């Protein structure tokens, strides 16, 4: 038997405690609610999986989930390529680098709710710049759900594409010059350079970008709440907000949480699938690397 150092547990204990307080205890409270019926007098009674069944048979839930998935899918399909495209065209040296970085970081610094407010005004058909310009094409986000959707996607792209671009840029600048030189010597086309050098070397940061953007867009709440305040619920989050019964709300939260967890895991597993190849031989790779 290999001796196990029990002291290690002491070292991780503070972290475990923190995680317990910040995540597990609140989560268990929600789990508790989701299996109870809370009466108007504050009386609890056990109902088992009834709330879950109700949620899963609720058409509104499925519609919201579906809309959520389409929204996240669209967001990723637009933001990731767009972000990479921007990163590829950002300058690598000179004064343009800091200028670009600051410009890109600006939208990221604006609070979520303010972003919602900005776009709500921007899109208004009476006074908003975009609203007025698009009015002639029949645009009206307050009246037409498709237009509301369009506005939300536009808003999210505006808000978050620069995050993807910045991450991709970080990946790109870490590629040594020798790779580009070798590609030129090998007669590689621009596409080949992208496909075989830039993309593989950006893979890790893009994995992070996709995960972040997916989670964030799937949990979107503040902005649609600000833009379409009072309108029909669109997403799981807004649906959740409008659900009245505490138990159903809790059950829905748990299902929502599990869906996000599962999807993230799938994403992660798919995207890091290639990293498991025998890489042990890489240990000597740093040899001579300091020159």
């Amino acid at each position, binding site marked *: 038997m290999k001796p196990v150092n029990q002291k290690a547990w002491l070292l991780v204990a503070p972290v475990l405690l923190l995680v317990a307080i910040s995540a597990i205890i609140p989560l268990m409270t929600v789990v508790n609610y989701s299996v109870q019926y809370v009466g108007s007098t504050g009386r609890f009674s056990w109902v088992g999986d009834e709330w879950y069944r109700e949620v899963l048979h609720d058409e509104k839930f499925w519609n919201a989930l579906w809309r959520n998935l389409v929204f996240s899918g669209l967001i990723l399909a637009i933001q990731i390529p767009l972000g990479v495209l921007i990163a590829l065209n950002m300058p690598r040296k000179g004064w343009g680098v800091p200028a670009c970085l600051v410009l890109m970081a600006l939208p990221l610094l604006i609070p979520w709710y303010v972003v919602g407010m900005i776009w709500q005004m921007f899109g208004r058909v009476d006074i908003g710049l975009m609203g007025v310009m698009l009015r002639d094409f029949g645009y009206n986000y307050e009246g037409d759900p498709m237009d509301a959707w369009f506005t939300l996607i536009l808003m999210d792209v505006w808000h978050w594409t620069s995050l993807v671009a910045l991450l991709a840029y970080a990946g790109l600048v870490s590629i040594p010059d020798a790779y580009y030189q070798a590609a030129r010597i090998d007669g590689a086309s621009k596409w080949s350079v992208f496909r075989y050098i830039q993309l593989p070397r950006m893979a890790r940061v893009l994995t992070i970008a996709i995960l972040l953007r997916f989670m964030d867009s799937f949990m979107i709440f503040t902005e649609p709440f600000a833009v379409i305040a009072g309108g029909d619920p669109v997403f799981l989050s807004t649906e959740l907000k409008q659900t009245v019964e505490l138990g159903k709300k809790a059950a829905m939260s748990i299902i929502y949480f599990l869906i996000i967890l599962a999807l993230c895991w799938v994403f992660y597993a798919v995207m890091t699938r290639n990293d498991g190849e025998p890489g*042990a031989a890489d240990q*000597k790779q*740093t*040899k*001579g*690397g*300091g*020159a």
Partner: protein
Amino acid sequence: MLELRDVSRRVSGVDHLSGISIRLERGALNVLLGPTRAGKTSLIRLMAGLDRPSAGSVLFDGQDVTGRPVSKRNVAMVYQQFVNYPGWTVRENIASPLKVRGTAPAEIEREVKRAADLLRLRELLDRRPAELSGGQQQRVAIARALVKKAGLILLDEPLANLDYKLREDLRAELPRLFADSAAVVVYATTEPAEALLLDGVTVAMHEGKVVQAGPTQSLYREPQDLATARIFSDPPINTIPAAAAANPARFAGATTLAVRAHHIRLQPRSASPDVYVTQVESIEINGSESFVRLDVRGQHWVMLARGIHAFAPGTSLTVYVEPEDVMQFDAAGQAIRPRREAA
């Protein structure tokens, strides 16, 4: 004194080191010699306490330090990459281990001066590492290791990233630097010539094992097995099955014969050498010497000949090997008879 007792290290099912038992004394330069991935770096990390052995124990001055982390041991390390604090001057870099320890400023000043003199860094004390050449940066790293007055100084291929000529200059200085250090100095390298120049004790390593350890000169001249002979030869050692030798009767009992490149001669030295008629494959000229590649009864040999020769490829060439220069190995690769070369 540093002692390793039957030390092994396995990482995810792969043996990086196995069954290593060696004793390294203070005041001697101990060289770990072997090709890349022979386990030199793994062994150094283990000696430093950066890694823990999977089995066996590490003793320092008789005290078991096996589980003790590097921060609790008095160890200095110099890496292949030049590791210095970029924001500090050379002076501050060298002084850093003393400052950490809270040494008095006057004492620090004196120690830094001494180390700077020894490593010829006196003029550079106020520069920052980025303003130094690679050789100078590595000297700063060595100076820092020296002032630390550690009981154990580990150098992991410190010259590997330097230009050939710089390497040659620093290599000539190294034995002098550690001459009056009371530490156990361990120096890992892939190059036989470096081990010979440092002239202390050599531990020859191959595939995570120690194949032979002992005084450098005796390892070089009397390797116990073929593996050590190979590790300790550059150009690679020439071998031939004993049965195919020019004079098999001389080497009865041996399976493989080996002879170093410079022991193959164009002129006989004694009255009864072994004579081989060979075919020239190619010639490489290295200034004062020529490396002549030969086909000897199907074996590929390299002869190191003094002077510049211009044998055309394909020509036939008679070479001479003195029996006293031939190493003999049995079927298991063990040296058969310790033989002595005239110095």
